[in-house]
């Protein structure tokens, strides 16, 4: 069960001014949404996760003891996703871009629209392959490659030893490679 102790274990520090919820919501909504979509490929599941995360943020923000708000939010997203998934089958992955109002920001500033379209096909294969992985494998891959966390940071988020992160990441990468070959990529 999610509790205040899940928010900031081992990082109790000097009390600092509680961040304003509205500011946190406006500044971090995109981050939480993007991580929710990556961890939970089903569209409805991801939107439920987004909502549940901010309900918990709203409830536990007064207990926030300082440090990185984003790091705190990341843990809430991962833990909430895990607790929501228990005993629940994954939804089929909806095309990430089927919703009117959907938008994305592309990392490569020099790529034109033609390059975007060319890369999109391989990106869709990758996203489909990710959606077929177990939650544990998908989560560790997203935390390492998308969130750029190191092994120690991932271990803290997942509350597992560093050795477990290293071996799980290796198995996740092999599972992704295998799925991509099954799907006909490269």
């Amino acid at each position, binding site marked *: 069960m999610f509790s205040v102790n899940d928010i900031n274990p081992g990082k109790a520090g000097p009390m600092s001014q509680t961040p304003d919820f509205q500011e946190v919501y406006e500044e971090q909504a995109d981050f939480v*949404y993007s991580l929710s979509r990556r961890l939970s490929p089903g569209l409805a599941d991801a939107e439920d996760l*987004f909502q549940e995360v*901010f309900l918990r943020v709203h409830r536990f923000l007064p207990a926030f003891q300082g440090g990185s708000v984003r790091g705190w939010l990341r843990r809430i997203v991962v833990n909430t996703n895990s607790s929501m998934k228990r005993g629940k089958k994954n939804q089929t992955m909806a095309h990430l871009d089927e919703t009117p109002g959907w938008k994305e*920001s592309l990392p490569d500033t020099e790529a034109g629209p033609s390059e975007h*379209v060319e890369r999109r096909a391989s990106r869709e294969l990758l996203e489909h392959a990710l959606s077929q992985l177990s939650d544990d494998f998908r989560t560790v891959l997203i935390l390492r490659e998308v969130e750029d966390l190191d092994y120690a940071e991932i271990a803290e988020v997942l509350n597992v030893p560093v050795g477990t992160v290293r071996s799980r990441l*290796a198995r996740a990468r*092999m599972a992704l490679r295998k799925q991509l070959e099954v799907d006909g990529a490269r």
Partner: protein
Amino acid sequence: MVHDEHIAELLSASLDGALGPQEKSRLEAILNSQPETGALLAKLASDRDALRALPALLAPTQLKARVSSKLPSPRGSGTRWKTALMAASLVLALGLGVTTSRLLPATAERLHLRPAQLASRAGERTEEFSLKGSSHIEPHVMLSEKVSGTYSGGSAQLRLRGDVGEHGSGGKLWLRLGFDFDGDGVYDLHSQPQVLQLDDSLGYEEIVCHIPLSEGMRDLSRGQIKVELASLDPNTPLTLQLDPQQAYLKLPFEQLDEHRNSAS
């Protein structure tokens, strides 16, 4: 495919620079004797690069408003919370996707959009033009030349209207800004391209796009600013509408000034 979990872990850890000296030596020996393992390592590295290139997904405005309306009002801060909820409700009621103005500094300047031009003065009538998707997509360019201004920090915001007409679903608008800060003809910086999904109903919809600007932004000295727009779907041309009062590009520059030699 390698079935040895130990080798798989060595390959994986090598991608993260997490091998100890003995592990590095062991992996080198394996790679020297097993070319197929080297090929696998290259594929794993390529998968890693593809994951790192996944774009950030931005929260849809309607989802944010819907979730915001379900959150309990904080005690003692009713005015601000109610104002935000009212704004969100108004946005939903009008069917608009308007972002909040607090994203931009108060001193932000704007250029008005015309089909081929960004201008300091608005046009006199609404203009329309189409973006035709094709197998090789050339973006449509709106340009402003000989522009000066002091960079004030922050992001840009583009506002216009678009419609996919009778072509149904799939309308995606790609847009990007470019800055030539000193007017030498070379674009020094491009924004991250933004891709927006339009709805498939008939009729124009408001498009408001917040465009983050990265490090490297600086003052403009008789430079150039361009907006590039494209339809990503070859089967779905987009029609864009430029209302002289509503179509604009807001930029984080103070005292933005066009040095025009002749009337536009």
